[in-house]
């Protein structure tokens, strides 16, 4: 095949390595600071500035400041990593200027980690070695006793007490293949970055004896190469929030500098593209993506391979030659790429477009932002491969204007790719031409819908149109167009590099790979969670997310944003993938996952989403425009105490009507949050309309505040804080609320330290 592609790729990769070598990053102490919208919001710029000052003052050239994106550990940001060669990497949480100062003077200069502020700490001491073991139940060793037990026993027999060696059970490393599963176990020894594959106790003994005691890695048992999440685990494997995840789409988040193409090359960047261009066969790519069972991550879950196939086969109206024939006729021969030349009469127009949907409209999802800010080149590489597969020479990034930093990072990534010859004419000498352009959204949720998005790129109002024809037949400027989500593209390089079989095996039966969830709301650890398709809600919410914050009780899990529904707490063992969530009356959507606790009123949540949909309805079709308005009116009536039992029937009828009769996905799904809460929480609706009571004490019109004279000590704090001064009482005497003036702001309830104010 075209070895020229491989040669060119290797030349670029070597050039990148050479540049990195000149920076001599390997033997330096690295201080790593996150730079992303969330990191900045938490104060990481101040932290970076503080380190810069210290570094300049210290005058040391063996210390390096390294920028990364975000790891997706939102509630603990800013996160700072200190990597001293030969020692365990240490991550600090919630770093501010003061702590940065301590980290620099104590840890970096004097070698004493600031143990009280270690991520998820404090810890008493850092272990000399850390052993990460794969905790997957599917693969892994099938000895008579669990691997972890055997390992613990052998370690103590070898005199390696807990302080020396710390064992961490992680989730799947992605290191097994179908043939070997069940016969081996994998373990990673840190900080040496050695991954072993062991099959029996003798091999384990050897590793303990030679490596842990003797300090000589056992090359014979070492895994060649690296697993997909390897780089990430080397840095973050000790943290429970991370090691229970399987990072594929997010594998570089928090590892690489998003603005450095050299680092991206270092982590095998563009290898997938080189492989694809070397094979020079769009059919191969499409087949591989199809076999991987990759399904669109934008919400619908449409098989990506199939979409690409349709995009490749489609012909512009009026010019197609021979229907249904699969014709990657673009490649007339080795190295010659000839768009427009197609077997048939005359020159068929093979113009087609590829679009990355980075509109991220679900108001509670942020995985796409994180990927674009932390690993933009991976998304760009996925798009170039997609462009090749469908035969497009032009692609677009449709990004929401609310993400200025993501926009800057994509701009930078595109610029770098052009400079390195990875976008533009004759990419890697393959003859394939492809370029990318950014188009900004302007704050309309409906523009996430494919046909509306196309109108928006065309410079029109973003209103949907009737489908079919689907964009794959007739899209942007009337040409066949394939639209995929950011996360979909982010998975493409993984499929090409690690193989379709491997990818399919990670996921559930019908969907391959992982899914990234944006975990937020009333959960202890908010952030990005990437787990295999089919992982249970329990793993995501409890094991990784740490359960509900503040010891409150889990009530529901909202998935799919305004198009999704609420899954009751009892269903926590539900495995999550596209199909199971649909069956539960919700949808996967883009992966927003909002945790609701006992203080959340389900009617209020339903109203919240309906307010959103009503506001965002483009008004083109009546069922959606009128339906959302009517439903919102009814929900407002119910939450303000004027609802009747008939209203519940009306909601249901209207909802079902909208589902059937609306033109686009927005209207069709807008009733989902209401229908799903009506089904699972009918008692709560009934309490509102029959007893005029809000069980969660959320709906203002249905609650009031009272002071318990038994508990009130007369401290006067509430009276001084009441904005309408409707609380009376002498100092040291029980106080009283004048209900006729109270505006139910809840201030008294919050400030009373004696739990004397009751919300009823």
């Amino acid at each position: 095949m075209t070895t020229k592609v491989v040669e060119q790729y290797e030349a670029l990769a070597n050039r990148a390595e050479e540049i990195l070598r000149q920076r001599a990053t390997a033997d330096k102490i690295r201080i790593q600071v996150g730079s992303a919208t969330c990191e900045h919001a938490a104060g990481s710029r101040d932290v970076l500035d503080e380190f810069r000052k210290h570094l300049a003052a210290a005058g040391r050239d063996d210390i390096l400041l390294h920028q990364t994106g975000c790891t997706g550990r939102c509630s603990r940001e800013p996160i700072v990593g200190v990597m001293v060669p030969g020692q365990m990497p240490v991550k600090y949480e919630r770093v501010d200027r003061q702590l940065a100062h301590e980290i620099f003077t104590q840890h970096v200069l004097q070698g004493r980690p600031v143990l009280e502020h270690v991520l998820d700490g404090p810890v008493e001491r850092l272990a000399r070695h850390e052993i990460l073991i794969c905790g997957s139940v599917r693969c892994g060793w099938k000895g008579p006793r669990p691997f972890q037990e055997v390992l613990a026993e052998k370690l103590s027999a070898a005199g390696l007490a807990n302080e020396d060696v710390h064992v961490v059970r992680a989730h799947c490393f992605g290191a097994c293949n179908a043939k070997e599963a069940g016969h081996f176990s994998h373990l990673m020894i840190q900080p040496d970055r050695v991954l072993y594959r062991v099959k029996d106790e003798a091999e384990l003994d050897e590793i303990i004896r030679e490596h842990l005691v003797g300090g000589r890695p056992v090359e014979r048992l070492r895994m060649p190469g690296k697993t997909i999440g390897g780089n990430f685990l080397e840095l973050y494997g000790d943290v429970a929030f991370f090691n229970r995840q399987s990072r594929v789409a997010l594998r570089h988040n928090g590892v690489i500098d998003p603005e450095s193409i050299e680092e991206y090359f270092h982590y095998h960047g563009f290898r997938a593209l080189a492989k694809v261009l070397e094979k020079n066969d769009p059919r191969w790519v499409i087949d591989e993506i199809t076999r991987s069972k990759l399904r669109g991550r934008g919400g619908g879950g449409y098989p990506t391979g199939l979409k690409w196939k349709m995009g490749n086969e489609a012909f512009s109206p009026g010019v197609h030659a021979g229907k249904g024939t699969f014709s990657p006729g673009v490649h007339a021969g080795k190295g010659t790429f000839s768009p427009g030349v197609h077997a048939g009469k005359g020159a068929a127009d093979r113009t087609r477009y590829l679009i990355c949907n980075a509109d991220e409209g679900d108001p509670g999802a942020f995985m796409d932002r994180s990927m674009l800010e932390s690993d933009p080149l991976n998304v760009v590489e996925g798009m170039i491969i997609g462009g090749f597969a469908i035969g497009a020479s032009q692609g677009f990034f449709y990004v929401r204007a609310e993400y200025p930093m993501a926009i800057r990072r994509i701009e930078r990534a595109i610029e770098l790719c052009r400079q390195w010859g990875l976008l533009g004419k004759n990419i890697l000498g393959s003859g394939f031409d492809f370029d990318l352009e950014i188009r900004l959204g302007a704050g309309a949720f409906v523009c996430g819908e494919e046909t509306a998005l196309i109108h928006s790129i065309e410079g029109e109002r973003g209103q949907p149109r009737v489908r079919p024809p689907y964009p794959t037949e007739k899209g942007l400027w009337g040409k066949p167009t394939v639209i995929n989500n950011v996360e979909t593209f982010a998975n493409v390089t993984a499929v090409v590099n690690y193989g379709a079989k491997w990818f399919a095996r990670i996921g559930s039966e019908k969907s391959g790979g992982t899914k990234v969830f944006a975990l937020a709301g009333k959960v202890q650890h908010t952030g990005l969670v990437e787990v295999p398709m089919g992982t249970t809600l329990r793993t995501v919410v409890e094991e990784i997310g740490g359960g509900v914050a503040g010891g409150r009780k889990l009530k529901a899990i909202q998935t799919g944003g305004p198009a999704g529904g609420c899954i009751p707490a009892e269903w926590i063992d539900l495995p999550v993938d596209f199909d199971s969530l649909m069956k539960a009356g919700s949808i996967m959507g883009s992966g927003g996952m909002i945790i609701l606790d006992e203080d959340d009123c389900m009617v209020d949540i339903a109203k919240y989403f309906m307010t959103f949909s009503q506001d965002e309805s483009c008004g083109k079709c009546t069922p959606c425009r009128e339906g959302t308005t009517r439903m919102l009116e009814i929900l407002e009536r119910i939450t303000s105490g004027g609802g009747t039992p008939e209203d519940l029937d009306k909601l249901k009828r209207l909802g079902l009507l909208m589902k059937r009769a609306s033109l686009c996905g927005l209207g069709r799904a807008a009733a989902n949050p209401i229908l799903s809460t009506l089904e699972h929480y009918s008692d709560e609706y009934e309490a509102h309309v029959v007893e005029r009571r809000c069980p969660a004490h959320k709906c203002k019109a249905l609650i009031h505040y009272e002071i318990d004279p038994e508990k009130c000590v007369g401290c006067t704090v509430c009276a001084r804080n009441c904005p309408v001064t409707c609380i009376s009482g002498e100092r040291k005497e029980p106080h009283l609320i004048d209900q006729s003036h109270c505006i139910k702001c809840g201030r008294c309830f919050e400030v009373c330290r004696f739990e004397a104010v009751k919300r009823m």
Partner: protein
Amino acid sequence: MSTCTDNWEQVEAAAKMVLGEPIVDFIEQASAKPHPESQLIAVLHEVQSRFGYLAETHLDAVAQLMQVPAAKVVGVAGFYHFFRLKPRGKFMINVCIGTACYVKGAERIAQKIIEELGITWGETSKNGVFTLEGARCLGTCGLAPVVMIDDEIHGEVTPDQVPALLEKYLKKARE
């Protein structure tokens, strides 16, 4: 550029005056690309980032220079929430009312700001310092509730912090 109007030169000159050189350049570059009309939204973004909002005169000028019907420009500007058709204060306060922020009490933050400034959604404070708007998720849900003032994001805001936060920007405005 077509000159179907008798006084095109005057019209063109006036439009260029209204928008200023950088935007006129931007429009000219856009016009040289394939599908120039598709650059309308990008042009409106440019205008808004320079003037803070889209005045009628701006929209007219854009229509003239891009040679698209004024009705279309007005329609597009009005369709998208991101475009502001009224002048804004010195600082934009965007209270996130996305789902994560909502369940973490964004309403109470907004209420406090509304009380403090005596304005409601979409309005500008009398002293011209603040304009209050609601945002649908700023992508930092992990730090909810979130308030963005101009480009700066403030996470885990409590109602009690609001006065001090506003004061910080008032001070900046006075400088």
